[in-house]
């Protein structure tokens, strides 16, 4: 209980830090960049939008910094992130709401797949120590961990999208020929557009799962209870799954809980390469179009997702492994 409370306290503290960063960054930059943005959109905005921007970015305000800060906190707490400037007059929250499902679908499913596949491969690699899988994989995945995600995406676009014409490589569905709806063609359309970005994500993220699982499993396999199980003559599969893997999977499970938080932000560049209509592309679009309200809200959303996942991961780890409860 005390443990959970302490983690919760840390969650609140970090959230506050992120919100404060959001507040301070535009104000700290030389020549508040929001001023330039405001003059660009001057005359196009209604008075309500102007007031919200005023509070969010501190433009045209004569209030002191602490006073600005408190009205900022109040506005964030009430969920008013202002109106988007690129998609004026739509509110920031409604725009994010339409994009988030694309990201959750693509990155969420790929994350689960990568975790399941990677953990399985890691178990087998550690079990057949010195086997073919075990000797090829570690160096290969050490190298892929250094390859930029977006570059893998570009290579796939080049091979399967442009040279071979097997799969579409841009967008979430054929915008010109297909209408969103509960039809089979639309479903196939979405699926075919998701394959290439999903493979790029899978290729670049699976290595971590494999290596972590393999390395923990190797340590576990050296434990006395595993040797004992061997001495008892238990079938190999049972030792592998019930004795070794079950105890070695904890770091991977924690990592999985955390990576769910990174679903929202983990594929920004992949979405950019494939022009995928998720929140990652949206963030970059907002940055490039100087749509600062949208940008701030997205950063906050990304941070909250990560923080929540870490909170859940911490508590889950404590529940699963009593040894961690007192530590740190």
């Amino acid at each position, binding site marked *: 209980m005390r443990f959970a409370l302490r983690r919760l306290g840390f969650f609140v*503290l970090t959230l506050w830090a992120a919100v404060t960063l959001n507040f301070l960054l535009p104000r700290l930059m030389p020549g508040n960049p929001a001023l330039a943005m405001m003059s660009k959109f001057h005359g196009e905005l209604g008075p309500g939008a102007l007031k919200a921007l005023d509070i969010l970015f501190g433009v045209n305000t004569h209030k002191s910094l602490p006073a600005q800060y408190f009205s900022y906190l109040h506005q964030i707490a009430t969920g008013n992130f202002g109106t988007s400037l690129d998609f004026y007059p739509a509110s920031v929250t409604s725009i994010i709401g339409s994009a988030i499902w694309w990201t959750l679908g693509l990155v969420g499913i790929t994350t689960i797949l990568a975790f399941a596949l990677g953990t399985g491969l890691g178990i087998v690699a550690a079990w057949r120590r010195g*086997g073919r899988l075990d000797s090829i994989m*570690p160096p290969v995945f*050490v190298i892929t961990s*250094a390859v930029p995600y*977006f570059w893998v995406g570009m*290579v796939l676009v080049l091979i399967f999208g*442009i040279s071979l014409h097997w799969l579409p490589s841009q967008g979430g569905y054929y915008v010109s020929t297909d209408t969103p709806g509960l039809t089979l063609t639309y479903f196939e359309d979405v699926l075919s557009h998701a394959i290439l970005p999903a493979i790029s994500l899978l290729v670049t993220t699976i290595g971590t799962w494999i290596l972590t699982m393999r390395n923990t499993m190797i340590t576990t396999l*050296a434990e006395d209870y595993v040797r004992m199980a061997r001495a008892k003559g238990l079938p190999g599969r049972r030792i592998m799954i019930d004795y070794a893997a079950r105890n070695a999977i904890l770091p991977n499970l924690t990592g999985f809980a955390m990576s769910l938080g990174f679903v929202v932000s983990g594929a920004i560049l992949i979405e950019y390469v494939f022009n995928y209509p998720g929140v990652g592309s949206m963030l970059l679009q907002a940055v490039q179009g100087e749509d600062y309200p949208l940008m701030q809200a997205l950063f906050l959303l990304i941070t909250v997702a990560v923080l929540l996942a870490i909170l859940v991961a911490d508590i889950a780890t404590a529940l699963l492994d009593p040894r961690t409860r007192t530590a740190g």
Partner: protein
Amino acid sequence: MSMPISAVPATVDQPGQQPGSTGAGRSRAPGTRVLARMGQAVRSNRKATVGTALLALFVLVSLFPGVIAHDNPGADAYAPRLGLTTAHLLGTTAQGQDMFAQLVWGTRTVMIIAFVVGLAATGIAVLIGVAAAYLGGLWDGSLSVLTDVLLVIPLFPLLIIIAGYAHGASTLVLIVVITLTSWSYTARQLRSQALSLRGRDFLEAARVRGERRLYIIVVELIPTMTSLIVAAFLTNALYAVLFASSLQYIGLGNPNTQSWGTMLYWAQNEAALQTGQPMWALAPGACIAALGASFALLNYAFDEIGNPALRPVRRTRGKPAR
């Protein structure tokens, strides 16, 4: 096939080689000894050899780009969009610049970012990690919270936001921003190791001798952590390369910088993939990957040296695997 049983303890019973556990016996010049052992490892471990060779190649290219590429990377001197020829190994850009020259000269920017951020971020990490562990109490509390908060705030989105406000971040801005945000992961690692070393006899002995705190930290404690500090440098350098290139690629850097990330930005902007100029995007990406791989390989090799259980086994371990 042979040695079915003795192979098991062989991978386990060598904790004596783990950093720190040898204790007071090597407190004379642990830093140099660790470095000597790393030098030895570079020769004997294949991953480390490949990593070092790649890194040395990039360092050479970044030091003497003019020797390798004779063209001015910024000059629009040739016909646009030339194919691959002996005069232009990678062709020319849509502006008629020699792409090979851009790649070669871009190496320098990337290496500067990698080494400056690597050194600076590792310096901050050592300072904060070791201070937190050694000073303890309130210091540890506040420094650890600072580290942890920075650790969990999603770094890449944060960098995007800052670079977005900064408008066309120059190399210097990139270096400063990445350094200030990316030290926390390695600081955490260094703190844990410093914590585990805190109660060791050789530190106690120094204290009894009446040495000053700063002396103990700098001369006694930090040298014993050399291998982890080198690993921290490699990690920070790797992330610096990936982050800086990614930011430049999405157009948040200064588009006139000569750098691999900037090349990728122009390739994307001019639709190089769609217009039959794949090399424009493939070559700089491959270079980023190769440089990153050299850092990652070295890091993994040193990890294997620190933790013998992870080393590849030459002999298969009998039959229990089925």
